[in-house]
């Protein structure tokens, strides 16, 4: 058995089941040629001399408002980040709302204010949109879709084919905060400090790294499925592998506490404002220094390197053991973004 008769929640988990669905049902219909080939975060579209990057994302997070953000900020950051890690400067956004009858007007206003604030902070403009209202019970309060367009940064040409043995893997900060903040809010877990979502834009991190564009091989914001999913996808069908050092991976102590309580591996948990970057070893420290000068990159760290261990992500554990890091399978934490 390797197909299901119906869509399961796991098909949206960002793991292998999602990947199967996309490969079988989307790629076969739309991705056999053109910009969708290889499923990049954003489509690179050549228009005369200019290259534009185009991306879209939908948001169904529950609760709508959570420590550190809300669905409005998330909807801006999610799409802006997909455009940014495709090597572009984000410019324009669309905003489509699907609203359930009965949503409090004050909640909608707060969320739209958040969209506005987040867009202003980044310098992107909402330029088109749509509003639909469905009857009570036909969606859960508010779903948002955004699409974004950006302008390609010249010289910043990243891609999996550029990754070489000896390259270095960098994170811009602690991992898994967003997913754990949502779960702590949903499960009403009481922590020593309030755990905030990391929702934020990575566009300044991309611009900072662009200074060493030649050595930057790959960029991705680890959302659903966490770094395990991103790194697993990177090594899949490639001649290299990745080894991570557990002691070097930065985690927020409160995110770790939530993960311990819920029995979740933080490597599988989503961030919404972090970046993973693979680059040549000689520029790693420079990028780290540049990132640490920014508030969103203050926790930047080297966490691993590219090896010749074909197709495998290996974790060197705290106590000196080694284990495989696998792509998460199906449903882990539904509706966290």
């Amino acid at each position, binding site marked *: *058995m*390797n197909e*299901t*008769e*119906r*869509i*399961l*929640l*796991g098909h949206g988990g960002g793991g*292998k*089941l999602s990947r*199967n669905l996309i490969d079988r049902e989307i790629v076969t219909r739309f991705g056999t040629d053109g910009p969708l080939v290889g499923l990049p975060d954003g489509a690179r579209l050549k228009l005369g001399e200019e290259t534009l990057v185009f991306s879209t994302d939908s948001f169904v997070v529950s609760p709508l408002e959570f420590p550190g953000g809300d669905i409005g900020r998330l909807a801006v950051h999610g799409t802006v980040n997909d455009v940014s890690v495709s090597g572009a400067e984000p410019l324009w956004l669309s905003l489509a709302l699907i609203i359930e009858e009965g949503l409090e007007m004050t909640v909608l206003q707060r969320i739209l204010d958040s969209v506005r604030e987040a867009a202003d902070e980044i310098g992107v403009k909402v330029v088109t949109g749509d509003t639909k209202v469905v009857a009570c019970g036909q969606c859960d309060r508010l779903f948002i879709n955004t699409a974004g367009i950006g302008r390609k940064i010249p010289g910043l040409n990243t891609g999996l084919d550029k990754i070489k043995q000896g390259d270095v893997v960098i994170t811009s900060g602690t991992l898994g905060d967003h997913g754990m903040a949502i779960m702590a809010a949903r*499960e009403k877990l009481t922590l020593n400090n309030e755990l905030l979502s990391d929702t934020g834009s990575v566009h300044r991190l991309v611009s900072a790294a662009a200074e060493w564009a030649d050595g930057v091989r790959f960029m991705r914001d680890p959302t659903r499925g966490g770094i395990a999913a991103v790194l697993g996808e990177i090594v899949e069908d490639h001649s290299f592998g990745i080894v991570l050092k557990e*002691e070097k991976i930065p985690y927020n*102590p409160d995110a*770790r*506490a939530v993960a*311990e309580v*819920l*029995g979740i*591996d933080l490597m599988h948990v989503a961030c919404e404002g972090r970046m993973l970057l693979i680059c040549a070893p000689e520029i790693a420290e420079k990028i780290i220094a540049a990132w640490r000068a920014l508030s969103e990159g203050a926790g930047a760290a080297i966490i691993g390197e590219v090896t010749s261990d074909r197709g495998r992500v290996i*974790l060197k*554990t*705290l*106590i*000196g*053991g*080694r*284990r*495989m890091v*696998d792509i998460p*399978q*199906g*449903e882990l934490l539904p509706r966290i973004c």
Partner: protein
Amino acid sequence: MKYIDGFRNHLAAKSITEDIHRLAGELSEQNKDARIMEVCGSHTMSIARYGIRQILPENVRLISGPGCPVCVTDAAYIDAAIELAERGIHVVTFGDMLKVPGSSRTLADARGAGGKVHVCYSPLDAVKLAKESPNEEFVFLGIGFETTVPPVISIIKKAKAEKLTNISVLTAFKLVPPALEALASDTDVAVNGFLLPAHVSAIIGADAYENFVEKYKIPSVIAGFEPLDILLGIKGLLEQLTGNRAELVNQYARVVRKQGNRIALNLIHDLLEPADASWRGIGTIPQSGLVLRKEFSNFDASKKFNISTQGGAPDKRCRCGDVLRGIIFPDECPLFDRECTPLFPVGPCMVSSEGSCAAYYKYSR
């Protein structure tokens, strides 16, 4: 987290690992090896997660036991839960149960087809749901060992106190000591040391194993779930094996008391009584389960909805039973990583994160 980090310290780990290698050397001079069964699924997971197997000497083998509650839950029980969901009854469960194959389908399939299946992190969520919809029926899937039993049955006490009549529990609770006896007396199972569970022991107390160790003369150490706990547990077992001793040692004394947790044990005794139980892949073990006492039959879903948790026909090729008894390693099953993967599991050991096959698949392929 400070408390946890102390038990993940790499310098301490290194020093204990050296001791383990030294003891294993002595063992090998005596022409002996160590075949240690970690009984509990949380041990299995922790061993895989920290790569402990890889740092052990060759003559120290860790064999995963039957202590993953999802893995030993009968196919017929899953079938019953699916049937309840199909009858329009709300089924509330921990997430691990969703993908466990019954005779032909899973609860995730039932949910995809419109069945009312809710995943929760706390059994109390079931009480909350039942209160919110007084005209609907709610069934909590009561699986698990001594650790999980008290929080699950506490919902019955709560429901009783709040006069809720629309909530019940479908029980398939299991007990560890009778399973240990079954393993120790099974001649196919060649284990010469037991790493005993941490949290189950916190409930039942260290004394609960005294008779077992006395009777079967197998070295046994109660160990916690952190990597240093496990390494210390292994070291303790090797010390007994090299010294030809067979004792019960409580390495996890910071949590496990001799008498266990009285409040939890009283709660179990008040609501439940022992009964024979069927373990998936292993068969019936006498007095190894817990069922609700007669006076609580209103909260017993099998009685309330007249549904059987017996019978069931899991895939015959699945060798989870042999994996659970430590007779084969997961990758020796012909289905492993072929037809049986965490995404499309054939057997229950591939489902739960605590399942031996899932842990093998995830961390050691």
